[in-house]
């Protein structure tokens, strides 16, 4: 059997695949953050709580209203996104002319309020969301037993990431968005409703977080602190990729998932730290991030 640094190749492949699955979550979450930062200049600390809301609403939908998984995948991001737009309209809007720090504080406070609410209503032990029937079971790939649902997570995440990249970098709507970031006044002069554009963008970024939440519900216990656990890593991903870079967040999300997977094989205790070590190195060498532009 081939071994790489004392680890059988088969085991290594299995671990890399698991890394890729986790990377998919990082990619979708950091993508949402990057869009919001890139176009609104807001550091959205509520992102983790919005991801958690996605998972929770899927669970509530299923247990209280019989909403099936596939419907939740569409309905829940729309709901949470709409809630995000209300937050943008009523609160965030007032902070655009101020320093980043104010947006960060507001969104962080909101995250605590939302998490506190779910703690209070549903308790701390977490809820279980069953894998949808169509995706139960798994496939023996020779080197790993791959649960079908995990394969679906990778496919769905990649599809959403690519579609989003296309929308923003290649479509005319995306062109408006990017123009709105560069020079909102000029764009407004052309008759484009810039504030509406910004609201929709925030809603879209939040919807991406909720989408990741619905995807995560059958994999992880649905608990109020699930977002808080993940969000710090996702912020590191965004910083490494370059704040606001769409492609950067996708590639970095997947790449760091793989690196984390490797760390879990060779040095498990270090696996939670390695992403931050990479972040430190990247910030020292390329302060704008791997894919970022210096503004």
């Amino acid at each position, binding site marked *: 059997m081939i071994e790489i640094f004392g680890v059988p190749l088969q*085991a290594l492949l*299995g*671990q890399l695949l*698991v*890394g890729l*699955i*986790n990377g998919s979550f990082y990619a979708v979450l950091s993508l949402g953050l990057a869009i919001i930062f890139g176009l609104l200049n807001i550091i959205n600390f509520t992102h983790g709580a919005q991801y958690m809301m996605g998972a929770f609403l899927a669970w509530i939908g299923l247990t209280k209203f019989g909403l099936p998984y596939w419907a939740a995948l569409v309905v829940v991001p729309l709901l949470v996104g709409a809630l995000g737009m209300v937050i943008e309209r009523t609160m965030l809007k007032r902070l655009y002319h101020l320093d980043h720090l104010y947006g960060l504080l507001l969104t962080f406070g909101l995250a605590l309020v939302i998490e*506190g609410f779910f*703690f*209070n209503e549903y*308790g*701390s*032990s*977490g*809820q*279980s969301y*069953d*894998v949808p029937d169509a995706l139960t079971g*798994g496939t023996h790939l020779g080197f*790993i*037993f791959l*649960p079908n*649902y*995990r394969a679906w997570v990778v496919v769905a995440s990649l599809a959403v990431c690519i579609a989003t990249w296309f929308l923003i970098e290649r479509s005319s709507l995306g062109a408006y968005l990017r123009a709105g970031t560069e020079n909102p006044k000029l764009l407004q002069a052309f008759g484009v409703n810039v504030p509406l554009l910004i609201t929709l963008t925030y809603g879209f970024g939040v919807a991406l977080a909720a989408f990741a939440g619905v995807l995560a519900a059958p*994999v*992880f*216990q649905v*608990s109020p*602190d*699930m977002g808080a*656990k*993940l969000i710090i890593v996702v912020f590191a991903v965004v910083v490494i990729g370059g704040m606001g870079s769409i492609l950067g967040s996708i590639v970095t999300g997947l790449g760091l998932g793989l690196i984390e*997977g490797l760390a*879990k*094989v060779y040095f*498990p*205790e270090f*696996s*939670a*730290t390695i992403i931050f070590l990479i972040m430190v190195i990247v910030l020292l060498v390329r302060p704008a991030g791997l894919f970022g532009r210096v503004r």
Partner: protein
Amino acid sequence: MRAVQVLMGAATLAFAAAAQAQISNDVVKIGVLTDLSGPYSDLAGTGSVEAVKMAVEDFGGKVLGKPIEVVAADHQNKGDIAANKAREWFDRGNVDMIIDLTTSSTALAVMKVAKEKNRISIVSGAASTKITNEDCTDTNVHWTYDTRSLAEGTGRAVVKQGGDTWFFLTADYAFGHSLEKDTSEVVTAAGGKVLGSVRHPFPGQDFSSFLLKAQASGAKVIGLANAGTDAQNSIKQAAEFGITPKQKLAGLLLFINDIHTVGLKAAQDLYVTESFYWDRDDASRAWSKRFFDRQKRMPNMVQAGNYSAVGHYLNAVKAAGTDDAAKVMAKMKATPVNDMFTKDGRIRADGLHVHDVYLFQVKKPAEAKGPWDYYKLVQTVPGDQAFTPLAQSRCPLVKK
């Protein structure tokens, strides 16, 4: 006639004064110090407070003619907050006894304050063996479980059932390490073999990488030296990756609440050690049903332990005729515990409440008759075996 009235009045006053000397501040006050908002609020929290209130109600709400009051506070799992609250309760709140103390840091902090103020502390929610060893006090009782009883129950009994090769999935902090160490010793002593372990960062979300390692080890039993959502996610993902049921999981610190949220489909066949199960006998069923009516969930061992301990404490106050800590503690230690929680439990000199613990296996979904019907009894572990023998206690109060 007038003289008689004066005499009677004087007698009443004298009686009241005498009673006051026995019960400090004319009230017996119990403080429930627990996690009301954090990660352990489901396994202790409001359920713990409710269990204490039930014990007081069942006692009649009064002892030696004085009312019994219950107060509760959130210690946020922080030792300093717990110690400050305890100090405030003892100094200004007339609290006579503090109970629950989920998480070891809060338990160890409050025990010290209770000793200093000469009041009683009862630990039901924490697991550290330090509580009755290096840090023992003569005003404290450790009621429900400790890491040694968990390791002994799950470790030895599972080896006896044929699970003789082990691999540990361990949360990378003091609690996980000590649970792994304790259980490894028991497994080896019982003739089993530990094939290896993997330390995962705490808290984690995705355990599949670590579980794949455990799978590759070929061990018959995967010991989960973690707790809360970490353990729940481990169980769930082990089922997802087809690791269970081929390999068995042994939860080293799981509560029935964890099984409830994970569900039987993922948790089936898992081994777990507990000091209490609602469906064990008629007494536990009757009490648990009342608890369920109030809380809409079944009690776990911490909550049941609270009820049992408060009942025992109030009986001791009554028998001692005072709420003085030393006298009440002497009565508590002299009297065996017989209630819905345990039969013939005994409190030793080091403050350890020795009682039977139970190794359970989680039922398959088809075996369960309804919600909360989760466990089948594999083995009863007698208290003398489950807990550290008194001769090995490192508590200075134990005379050798």
